[in-house]
């Protein structure tokens, strides 16, 4: 019992999370449509560009200029032996009225021959479309067979999309089963970017053509395409985020997608936007909304209503189920009639009237702004020990107090006022309420914040002794300003209320205010390279080298005197080998010092050393034998 309840809560939270659905971030505004039309209206260079231009303009609902000239152009450029050429000519002539392409038996044969497993998918698509546009008969079974076989061989996105477009040109009784499943397969291949965009990695043209193909086939067989609402909106975001198009093919694919999403039988995304800023005030009491499809065409049959509106600050509900009225293509609601307090309001708007509408619940933040008035502004100089009565002066906005106030170290300067809404008389607490004192001579300014108390009465007190450090103890005449500002106020206030003469003790000589020099070049750092160590002069080291070699001479002399000789040298091979090896070892040491590293040396050492060792072993053994014999 507990588990099913938990499960219920889980499902509820999931649906609530799902209610935070994707909203359309991009669509084709009227300017975008105009730009697209401009691009598509370029003069034709060849048959393919004529095809893209004419089809694109037709999809946007724009008129193709000068049908006769277009027809002449097509007929002159037509190559009756090429399937592509026939396709472009046939489709273009179908889009403009009163243009007939001559069809011969050869043309028909060429087109029918292209419908086979061995042609590429593009060829099959173009042949079938041309046959359909020219009114020639098509055998559905053959076409579907060829398409299914080609899908297995050409598994890429553009090929399968072409297959879907081809199937949409066949008569309705054909068996579309396998082809329809491809829509779902292709949907699975789309890349989700951040939950906002859904597109093919092949690019914009592939995504836009897929949308056109999916909806045209779905409309043709009258079966809803397996695309969820969120996916449709993500596709809308992807296709209409690019506002300048690289090629005619890309432009016409976007135009086709826009037409498909505006007028198919199943999903029509709704774009709701406020006309101008979403702000209402007493001077402008109506909230105006534009409700259109993705091509910025107004939805005539829509019913727009506010499901609920609540104040962001207090979370209290202001409106519930309030309808908008349609006025000259714009939906209006007089929000000020409910007399809302100034601030921000969160609206949930629903668009109804057509079961095909997608993304028809949106959230909109509306600002209600107002004007502020200052009342009961009282300025006074209060004595600290309160022995002398306070002198209060009332100043009215926007005039200035006639007599300047004087405050020295025994006195405080005080101010109190109220801020009220002009229209409703409600007390306001705007974000910015500052008191600014500006020294007329030195240009120094000090800003304080005025705070409201619990009754929304603003009070400010300046203690000259306490605050003297902020003023740098500079006495003089200060201009007193009040600054009031807020996002919801239409009339921010800067009011020069009075002049205040402040007298400080221990006055320092007024220093001129220097702007902080933060961004001047810093002193250059000189890099000190590492000094080489001090070496002794070469003479000294050469002398000592000679000195050190001198004991060797002494050794030779001593040995000579002792009678050491090599008379016992036996010329046996092991002896010679030993001495040669030993000399080689010493040579290796020298080479190690000059050229080699440890690893190479160890390698050579192993080789020479082992030879020397074996030879030496032999030699010394012989010597030992000789010595024992002598005994």
């Amino acid at each position, binding site marked *: 019992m507990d588990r099913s309840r938990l499960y219920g809560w889980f499902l509820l939270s999931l649906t609530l999370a799902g209610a935070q659905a994707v909203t359309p971030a991009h669509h084709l505004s009227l300017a975008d449509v105009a730009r697209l039309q401009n691009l598509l209206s370029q003069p034709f260079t060849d048959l393919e560009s004529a095809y893209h231009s004419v089809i694109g303009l037709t999809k946007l609902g724009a008129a193709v200029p000068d049908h006769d000239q277009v027809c002449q152009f097509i007929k002159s450029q037509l190559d009756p032996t090429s399937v592509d050429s026939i396709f472009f000519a046939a489709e273009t002539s179908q889009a403009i009225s009163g243009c007939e392409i001559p069809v011969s038996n050869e043309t028909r044969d060429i087109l029918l021959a292209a419908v086979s497993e061995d042609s590429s998918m593009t060829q099959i698509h173009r042949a079938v479309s041309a046959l359909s546009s020219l009114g020639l008969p098509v055998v559905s079974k053959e076409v579907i067979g060829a398409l299914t076989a080609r899908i297995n061989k050409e598994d890429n996105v553009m090929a399968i999309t072409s297959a879907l477009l081809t199937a949409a040109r066949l008569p309705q009784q054909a068996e579309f089963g396998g082809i329809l499943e491809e829509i779902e397969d292709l949907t699975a291949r789309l890349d989700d970017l951040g939950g906002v965009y859904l597109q093919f990695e092949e690019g914009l043209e592939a995504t836009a053509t897929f949308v056109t193909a999916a909806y045209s086939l779905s409309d043709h067989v009258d079966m809803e395409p397996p695309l969820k609402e969120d996916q449709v909106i993500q596709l809308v975001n992807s296709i209409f985020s690019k506002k300048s198009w690289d090629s005619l093919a890309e432009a016409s694919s976007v135009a086709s997608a826009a037409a498909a999403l505006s007028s198919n039988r199943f999903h029509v995304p709704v774009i709701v936007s406020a006309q101008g800023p979403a702000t209402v005030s007493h001077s402008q009491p109506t909230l105006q909304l534009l409700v259109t499809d993705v091509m910025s065409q107004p939805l005539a049959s829509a019913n727009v209503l506010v499901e609920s509106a609540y104040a962001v600050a207090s979370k209290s509900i202001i409106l519930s189920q309030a309808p908008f009225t349609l006025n000259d293509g714009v939906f209006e609601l007089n929000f000020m009639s409910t007399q809302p307090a100034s601030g921000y309001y969160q609206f949930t708007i629903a668009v109804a009237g057509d079961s095909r509408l997608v993304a028809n619940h949106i959230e909109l933040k509306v600002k209600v702004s107002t004007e502020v008035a200052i009342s009961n502004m009282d300025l006074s100089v209060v004595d600290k020990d309160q022995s002398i009565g306070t002198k209060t002066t009332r100043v009215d906005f926007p005039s200035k107090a006639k007599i300047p106030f004087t405050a020295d170290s025994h006195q405080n300067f005080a101010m109190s006022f109220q801020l009220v809404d002009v229209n409703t008389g409600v007390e306001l607490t705007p974000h910015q309420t500052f008191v600014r004192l500006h020294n007329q001579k030195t240009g120094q300014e000090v800003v304080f914040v005025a705070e409201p108390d619990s009754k929304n009465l603003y009070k400010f007190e300046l203690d000259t002794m306490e605050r003297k450090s902020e003023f740098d103890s500079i006495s003089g005449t200060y201009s007193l300003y009040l600054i009031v500002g807020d996002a919801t106020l239409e009339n921010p206030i800067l009011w020069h209320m009075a002049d205040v003469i402040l007298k400080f003790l221990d006055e320092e000589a007024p220093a001129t205010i220097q702007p902080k020099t933060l961004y001047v070049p810093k002193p250059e750092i000189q890099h000190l390279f590492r000094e080489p160590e001090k070496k002794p002069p070469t003479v000294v080291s050469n002398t000592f080298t000679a000195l050190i070699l001198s*004991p060797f001479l002494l050794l030779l002399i*001593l040995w000579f005197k002792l009678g050491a000789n090599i008379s016992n040298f036996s010329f046996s091979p092991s002896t010679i080998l030993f001495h040669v090896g030993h000399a080689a070892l010493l040579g290796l040491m020298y080479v190690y*010092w000059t050229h080699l590293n440890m690893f190479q040396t160890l390698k050579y050492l192993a080789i020479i050393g082992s030879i020397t060792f074996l030879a030496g072993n032999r030699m010394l053994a012989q*010597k030992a034998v000789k010595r024992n014999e002598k005994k």
Partner: protein
Amino acid sequence: MSNSVISVISRFLEEYTSTTPNKLKVVDAYLLYILLTGALQFLYCLLVGTFPFNSFLSGFISCVGAFILAVCLRIQINPQNKGEFLSISPERAFADFLFAHIVLHLVVINFIG
């Protein structure tokens, strides 16, 4: 006092020249040579400073190491010490001396820079 020192020294020298076999005298001459070389290196370092310290160290250690190895050789081939080195023949001592020298020189050359 100095008289007795001089007489001790002269007696020592006399005994040395008469009793030590020639072989040992050869090794002693070698020892003297190594000692002088090491002392001169040290003197140089004292005079001009230890700038290429690694070179000084390797040279000095080479002298010290060679001295020690030669002393070992002298001990091992002295016939008077035969009783203590029964398993080590003079040839074996000399072979050890050579092997140890190879290792010493390898390290010295590595460190001399």
